[in-house]
């Protein structure tokens, strides 16, 4: 047995306007789950503590709660000292119990009007990954789009795709899913992150439903424009000024000896909108000993097409990019755009390894910069953090780079999934929420590592938004200045 102290959000609808926090100290077994800690409170301290549970083995989906802000199943996650347990982000009925009935009863069920038969292997393989849902509503609690837009939510969309894939229910419900907010999803992957069964709803349901919508001509007009642009130019962004690739040679040599060699997948945003940022990244890589190949015939990775369900010429883009990068002979393809990196890693099968610049720098070791005297916070780009599981590397860089680094919760800024172009009001609302979160940290500056986030967040905060490699370059400049002063002083 061990002693555990933790906090629970309590709420009694008869007496409380909003939940309040109570701290409890209980005796629990080694390895006790959150559920057992709650049982201990109920049995030893307060028999009125209300929470749902049943199977105790992660199968019934009754006991989802938020622990330190993250939705989890109470029966599966280990209880930890100091944890804060709250109800899901849904209407609270009492203590940790939320109203689930109305959401669950609204989920569409399969209507058996087709023939009765078992599935083919292919059908089975397609549907099965969408079938593991235990309806715990963790995804509904976590979804940012659902907070600001008319959206039936991640698991409702999962269920729609499950029906769409099933030959036993031939109904066509695509228009319905569009009405239910199919295009409001930013593909931030928060639902995957919080799902106890790790169901890949954006990739396996949302984007696939958007493909079905595309076939029925229901793609949003702004998204269609982007697809036509890519088809016409190979790029998802129009040229309005000299591009990055127009300014650099095919191969860039490092400062000093060659420590590593990479091929750079530039991405449309850095090439055409933010070439200066890409040049900052190049300087950082050069300084750290990398020879960088930049094949000029690379094209859009296809992310804007995949996210919006317009995949009819995706394979051509993939073939081009794979062929072009294979030709460089590099084992590692470098990305600095979170969206491109996530796409190359998850939607491509590549004969080379794809790495984000944060990974390359921290794995290979990077020269320490001068610590800048600023308080910064970091915005996790969804497609870097959840799309590529890159969480620690940018933090490692920042800790060596600034005097004070403060965390803020990782939430979508609203720029992804075609929402910024397709549904700008929703994107703006999510952006405003990010702006508030930034304000709360008291940081003077926001660092991130994604062109979409940089662009979008900048519109919703009065703090400077800066790419991590740009800041790193500043750190090096500061260092060089310092050492020159030193030299001058010596003279």
């Amino acid at each position, binding site marked *: 047995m061990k002693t555990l102290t933790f906090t629970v959000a309590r709420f009694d609808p008869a007496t409380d306007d909003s939940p309040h926090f109570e701290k409890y100290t209980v005796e629990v*077994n080694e390895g006790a789950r959150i559920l057992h800690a709650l049982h201990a409170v109920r049995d030893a301290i307060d028999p009125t503590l209300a929470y749902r549970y049943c199977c105790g083995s992660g199968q*019934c989906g009754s006991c989802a709660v938020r622990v330190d802000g993250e939705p989890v199943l109470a029966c599966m996650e280990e209880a930890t000292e100091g944890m804060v347990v709250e109800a899901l982000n849904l209407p609270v009925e009492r203590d940790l119990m939320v109203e689930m009935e109305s959401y669950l009863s609204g989920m569409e069920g399969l209507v058996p009007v087709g023939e009765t038969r078992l599935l083919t292997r292919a059908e089975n393989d397609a549907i*099965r990954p969408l079938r593991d849902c235990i309806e715990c509503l963790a995804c509904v609690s976590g979804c940012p789009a659902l907070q600001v837009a008319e959206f039936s939510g991640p698991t409702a969309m999962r269920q729609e795709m499950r029906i769409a894939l099933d030959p036993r229910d031939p109904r066509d419900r695509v228009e319905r899913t569009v009405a239910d907010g199919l295009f409001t999803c930013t593909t931030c992957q928060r639902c995957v992150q919080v799902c106890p069964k790790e169901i890949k709803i954006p990739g396996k349901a949302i984007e696939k439903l958007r493909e079905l919508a595309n076939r029925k001509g229901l793609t949003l007009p702004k998204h269609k424009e982007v697809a036509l642009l890519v088809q016409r130019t190979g790029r998802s962004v129009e040229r309005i000024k000299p591009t990055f690739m127009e300014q650099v040679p095919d191969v860039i040599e490092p400062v000093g000896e060659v420590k590593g060699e990479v091929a750079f997948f530039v991405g449309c945003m850095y090439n055409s909108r933010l070439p200066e940022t890409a040049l900052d990244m190049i300087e950082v890589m050069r300084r750290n000993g990398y020879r960088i190949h930049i094949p000029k015939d690379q094209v859009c990775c296809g992310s804007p097409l995949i996210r919006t369900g317009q995949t009819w010429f995706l394979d051509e883009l993939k073939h081009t990019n794979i062929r072009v990068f294979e030709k460089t002979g590099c084992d590692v393809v470098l990305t600095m755009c979170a969206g491109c990196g996530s796409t190359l890693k998850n939607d491509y099968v590549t004969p080379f390894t794809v790495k984000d610049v944060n990974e390359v720098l921290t794995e290979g070791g990077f020269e320490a910069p001068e610590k800048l005297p600023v308080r910064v916070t970091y915005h996790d780009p969804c497609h870097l953090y959840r799309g590529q599981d890159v969480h620690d590397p940018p933090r490692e860089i920042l800790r060596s780079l600034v005097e004070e680094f403060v965390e803020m919760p990782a939430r979508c800024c609203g720029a992804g999934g075609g929402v910024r172009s397709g549904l700008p009001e929703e994107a703006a609302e999510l952006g405003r929420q990010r702006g508030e979160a930034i304000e709360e940290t008291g940081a003077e500056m926001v660092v991130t590592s994604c062109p979409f986030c940089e662009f979008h967040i900048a519109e919703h905060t009065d703090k400077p938004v800066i790419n991590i490699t740009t800041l790193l370059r500043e750190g090096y400049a500061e260092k060089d200045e310092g050492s020159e002063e030193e030299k001058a002083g010596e003279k």
Partner: protein
Amino acid sequence: MPGDDVVDCHVLVIGSGGAGCRAALEAQQYGDTVLLSRTLTGKGGCTIMAEGGYNAVLNENDSCLLHYEDTLRGGAYLNDPELAEVLVAESPERFFDLARWGSVFDVAEDFVAAQRPFGGQRFNRTCYAGDRSGHEIMATLVEQVRNSDIHQIQEEAAIELLMEDGRAAGAFTLDRDGTPGVIRADAVVIATGGGTQIYDISTNCAAGTGDGFALGWRAGGELVDMEMIQFHPTGAVYPPDARGRLITEAVRGEGGVLKNSEGERFMARYDPGRMELSTRDVVSRAIANEILEGRGTPHGGVYLDVSHLPAAQIEERLPIMLEQYLTFGVDIRTEPMEVAPTAHHIMGGLRISPGCQTTIPSLFACGEVTGGVHGANRLGGNALADTQVFGKRAGEGAGKAAVRKKADYAARLARQEERFARFENGTTPPHEIVSALKRAMWDGAGIFRTKEGLLAAQAEVTRLSALIPKAYGQRGRLECCTVENMLCLSSLIIRGALVREESRGAHVRKDVTQDWMPERSPFGHTIQKGDSCIIEKKGGAA
């Protein structure tokens, strides 16, 4: 006139697990049906936790006769033959009902169900959806319940049947705030599942408290073979709070082997022919014996090992096992699990006809709350089939019940109010009664039994029954009712076990020597009704 707290319907189905949902879907074809669930619909009950699979004769090289013989042999010939016959005959049709409603069971090839070997069966007839087969069934049924006009009453429990002239006419309920209600019906289906939460180590969900056995017994129904408790051979042993959690038989079906602390595949000494895929009663006793004789693991179990299987097979066929063990820091692709027997299933229960009619008019029952289908030991994969086959039959039987004048309940409701008043002045926190009960049942009425041990358990149950569970506010009423049900179920099990002076199937009396094999047993069912408990003598006469 009925008030706000009264709901009238044609059929009341109590319990929203596999059997209850199936019964409600059937009953709704005949008239307004209420599906009463102590949890959110479909989230309670043990069906959703069932992992291994669903037995059905689907292959032309298999036969219903073979399935029937396996079921009877597994059940130590205590099964009601008619019920077993219905089970095997209708299981395939019910499997295809699920397919019609959109179930996603694994297929071996296009349009052909995948089937795996399970213990005690001579053919690979266990259909599955990975190791979340029960979840697949519940997902399928719940979709259909939501599509239907079934009136779902959720997070409200039946605390007593409403009886009128000896017939079941509905139920008294408590919602989660402790507010009493009445549901009146022309027929009632009890589908409340099992109750091995009365044991210290159990696979059951929190709702496995045996409410339906108690409801039926208090209403004067007959119960059979209540002593027959299946201890599943493989429950988790560590960490302490995960004790008893089910490790699916599919682990052995996929090729998992059992070893003791000396590395010996000990099943060779207990059942060399069937080894790990012997029936559950045999494997459980073998494991319990290895542990008793000092060949157990550090945490008091034996090893169950799949690390010799390809990792991909484990990932595809046993994903939940893999996930659950990884949560506790064990990678079953490379390390063995530690397992020990755990109370799993109650074979005994309300006595039913093949039409699921109990011995009380207008009262039907289906699923684990019934007795007779599985005899003295249930085959893995037969429980999910049971829920669908008898769920449909119970729903149909209840649906066809005649429409009657709704019962007058006022006087009986007053008796429930007296019960609540007693709880409010209770003496003991409910959880204290329950934890003492669980220990007493595990120690005295567990895998190995003696008259002396059973009497000690009975004395403890009697002592605990004299305590009054304390309700902390109105919301605490239901828990007190549940404690009473658990005590009632425990008494029924102990009485049955005392009366059955033989070892048979899952019931082992170490203090009785016998010279007969199960098929030659001079005994039939134990039958309990009210305070009477008798055992049938061969030839049917009691």
